[in-house]
């Protein structure tokens, strides 16, 4: 029987956000979801400082949602240690109204039976925001 070893690699990183992601996370705290408009008129969520297809700089933030549509989903029946909820939930591609792209986020639907592509959802906000993406704690069925 060989000996077991454990190594923990741990650090509290401090990320500076810049203007776009900074505004996005600040918006979540105020219960607002911000996207950003590309030159072709598309609205990206989450907002990026650049058009991911061309690298062109973007700066026109626009509010989207709060209603949204599930475009794809999977059920996490047994959440792991890094997952945002401690009870079963869905990871989903969620497209807020007014946005042309979807964000990978969390749907707290209680049961996989309630999940379907096309499901309408609304945000549930974290009571005590901590300036992270999960200040939008989860999406819940409308």
């Amino acid at each position, binding site marked *: 029987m*060989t000996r*077991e*070893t*454990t190594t*923990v690699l741990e650090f*509290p990183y401090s990320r500076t*956000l810049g203007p776009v992601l900074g505004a996005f996370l*600040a918006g979540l705290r105020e219960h607002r979801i911000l996207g950003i408009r590309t030159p072709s008129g598309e609205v990206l969520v989450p907002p990026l400082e650049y058009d991911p297809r061309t690298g062109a700089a973007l700066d026109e933030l626009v509010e989207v949602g709060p209603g949204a549509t599930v475009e794809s989903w999977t059920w996490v029946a047994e959440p792991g240690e890094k997952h945002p909820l401690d009870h079963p939930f869905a990871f989903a591609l969620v497209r807020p109204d007014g946005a042309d792209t979807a964000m990978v986020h969390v749907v707290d639907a209680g049961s996989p039976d309630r999940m379907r592509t096309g499901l309408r959802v609304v945000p549930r906000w974290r009571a005590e925001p*901590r300036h992270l993406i999960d200040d939008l704690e989860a999406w819940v069925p409308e």
Partner: protein
Amino acid sequence: MSDAPKQDLVMAHLVSLRYEEPLSRILDRFVDGLMEGRILGHRCPACRRVYVPAKGYCPLCVVETTEADEVEVADTGVVTGFTIITPVAYYGQEETEPFVYASVLLDGSDANLGGQDIVGIPHDQVRAGLRVRAVWRPPAERSAEGITNRGWGSVGSAIDAFTPTDEPDAPPEQYAEHLF
């Protein structure tokens, strides 16, 4: 939470990852040795160099070594190089006072044990050539702690430090190939 504008531009994210695995057979046997107060290594069948702890191969010849190549080396040796470290504070750093970080070439080994503490002598008298002996923990307090397959740790869970033997210093030519 502060409402200072700058706060909006910073995001704190704790990243914590755990790596769990059994010690390799070679290191497990090395720890068995430490428990009994023995220091084991492998002798390269090609170049005859001895590595402590064994790697399972000779990095110079790139040939594998096995238990058949096992040798025991002494718990005495010579300091071949050192630094006095003024610890820098960082997340997880437990040291606060200056400490010795010495390389010790054990008698019978061809590879330094790095990062050893030297006790029983003032920091300003630590020197290359100093003859030292292992300060073993009591057998019941020895463990495999800190020894991993990633190359971290060597003898620290069984040997707290090295201390002068009070022999005359080793002549430089004896450790010239092992300065670092």
